[in-house]
C-alpha cells in the first residue's frame, strides 16, 4: 500500500511540471500563430499642430527616453516647484489620441505607466 502511494506521488511530482510546461508552450505557440501577420504597433501622430515644427527633443530621443523626460519634469514640479514649458498635458496638443499614440505600444511591451491615474489624457 505504502509503495503504491509512493509510486503515485512520484508520477504526480513529474506530471505537474510537465503539464505546466506543456500548457505554457502550447499557449505561447498558439498566441504567436494567432498574432501571425499582424503588424508591429506604430506610433501614430494624428494631428501635428501647425504651431510646432518639431517635438521638444529629437525623435530618436523621444522614442527611447520620453519616460525619462516625463519623470524629470515630474520631479521638477513635485519636489522643487519648478513648472516649465514642457508637460504631459501639452503633449496632447499634437498627440491627440492616447489610445493610438501611447497605449498600443505600452500594451505590446506590457507597460502600465501610472501617468493616467491623475492626468486626464484622452
Amino acid at each position: 500500500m505504502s509503495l503504491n502511494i509512493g509510486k503515485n506521488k512520484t508520477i504526480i511530482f513529474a506530471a505537474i511540471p510537465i503539464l505546466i510546461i506543456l500548457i505554457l508552450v502550447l499557449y505561447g505557440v498558439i498566441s504567436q500563430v494567432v498574432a501571425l501577420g499582424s503588424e508591429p504597433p506604430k506610433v501614430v501622430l494624428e494631428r501635428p499642430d501647425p504651431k510646432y515644427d518639431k517635438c521638444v527633443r529629437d525623435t530618436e530621443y523621444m522614442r527611447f527616453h520620453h519616460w525619462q523626460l516625463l519623470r524629470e519634469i515630474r520631479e521638477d514640479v513635485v519636489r522643487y516647484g519648478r513648472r516649465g514649458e514642457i508637460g504631459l498635458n501639452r503633449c496632447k496638443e499634437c498627440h491627440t489620441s492616447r489610445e493610438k499614440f501611447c497605449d498600443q505600444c505600452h500594451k505590446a511591451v506590457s507597460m502600465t505607466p501610472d501617468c493616467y491615474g491623475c492626468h486626464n489624457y484622452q
Partner: protein
Amino acid sequence: MDSNEGIAQKQQEATVPENLETSSLSGNGGPVVIRSDLDFIESLRSRCGDFFMKCMQCGTCSATCMIAPDLAPFPGKEMAWASWGLRDRLLKDPDVWLCYQCNDCSTRCPRGARPGDLLAAVRQESIVQHAFPRFLSRWVNQPQAVPLLLSIPIILLSLALILREPVEKALGITRPVGDEILYSYSSIFPHWLLNNFFLFFTGLVIIAVIVGVVSFWGSMKAFVPAGRDITPVKGLMPSILSALKNVITHENFSKCTAERTRQFSHICIFFGFIALSCVTLWVMTLGINPLISGNFIYPFGFWSPWKILANLGGLALLVGIGLIIRDRMRHDEQAGAGNYYDWAFLATIFAVVATGFFTEILHYVRLEPHRHIAYFVHLVFVFALIVYLPYSKFAHIIYRTVAMVYAEYTGRNNGTSSNEGGK
C-alpha cells in the same frame, strides 16, 4: 559482490607491502593479480577524505541501498575496490553511476565510512577519465583555475562584441531601428550574434560529449564482472526509453530515505532547466520559424506565456538550488560532504539564476548601461555552465543517463543476468 572473497583478499593484501602486485587464489582456483593504484587512492582521498578506508566490508551499505537491485548490490564491492586502489574496475563500473547519493548507506554505516561520498568521488574521477579534451577537466577540478575558466568566456564574448559591427557590415546584416519602439537588448547583443556564438560552442560541447559517451560505453562493455552476463536483454531504443522515463519521473529519487528533500529540489532544477530550454529553443528559431511573425519583440512582455514559462522555470531553479545549498550546509552526512567540484557546480547554477533575475529586474527598472552589464555577466556564467558541462558535475546528466541505459540494456536492474551474483 562476494564479500567472503573480498575479505579473504583484503587479509592477503594487508600482509604484503601495499604497492606490490599481490596474487591470491580466487574462488575458482586461478590466480588473481591485484595492481593497487596508489595515486588513485590518493586522489580519492583528496576528494572525499579517507573515511572509506574505515570500511570493514560488513555489507550494510549494499543491504540498505534501496536503488541497488537485490541480486547485484552496490556499493559494498566499490568500497573494497577503492581501498585496494582498483582504478580500472571502478572507472568501468556502471554501478557507481546508478547511485543517487541518497546516503542511506552513509547514515547507516557502522564505521562512518561514507560510501555515498566515496561513490561521488569515483564519479568525479570517471568524468575526468572520459572527458575530452582532458586538460579542461583538469582545470575544472582546480580552484586555482577559476579566473582562467571565467576569463575564457569574458574574452570570447568581448571579442564577439568588438567584431560585431565589422561583421554586420561585411555580411550586410541590418538591425531593425525603424519605426518600432524597442527597448530590447538587441542594440548591444543582437540576436544573430548570441545565436551563432552559443550554437558554435554548443556544437563543440556536443562533440566532446559524444567522445566521452563512446569512451564510457566502451569501457563499461569491456568490464564483465564475475558471474554476470552482459548480453543485451532488450533493444537499445527500449532501454533508452525506460531510462528516460526513470529520469523524468525521478523514480529512483523517491526510493531514498535519508535525503528526502533532494527529490523535490532535483525536480525543481530538472524541470526549471527544461522550461528554460523550451523558451531558449523557441527564441533561437527566430528568423527561420514561420510561426514567429514580425511583431516579435525581445525580451517578451511580462505576461507573455513564454515569459511566464521562463520566469517559472527560473523560480523553480532558484528554489531547487537554494534547497540543495541549504541541505549541503546543514547536514552533510545526509546530503553528501561536498568538495570543491560539487560546490563549483552549485555555484555556477546559482550564479546563472541570480544574474538572470538581476538582469530582468534591471530591465524593468530601466537602468540603461547596468542591465547590459548584468546581461554580459549572465552570459558569461551561461557559457561556463554549457561549455564546461562535459567536465563539471553537470556531466552527470550524460554519464548517469548512459549508465542507466546500459543497465537496462544488459538487464542489470531486473537481476535476470546476475543469477550467480549472490552465490
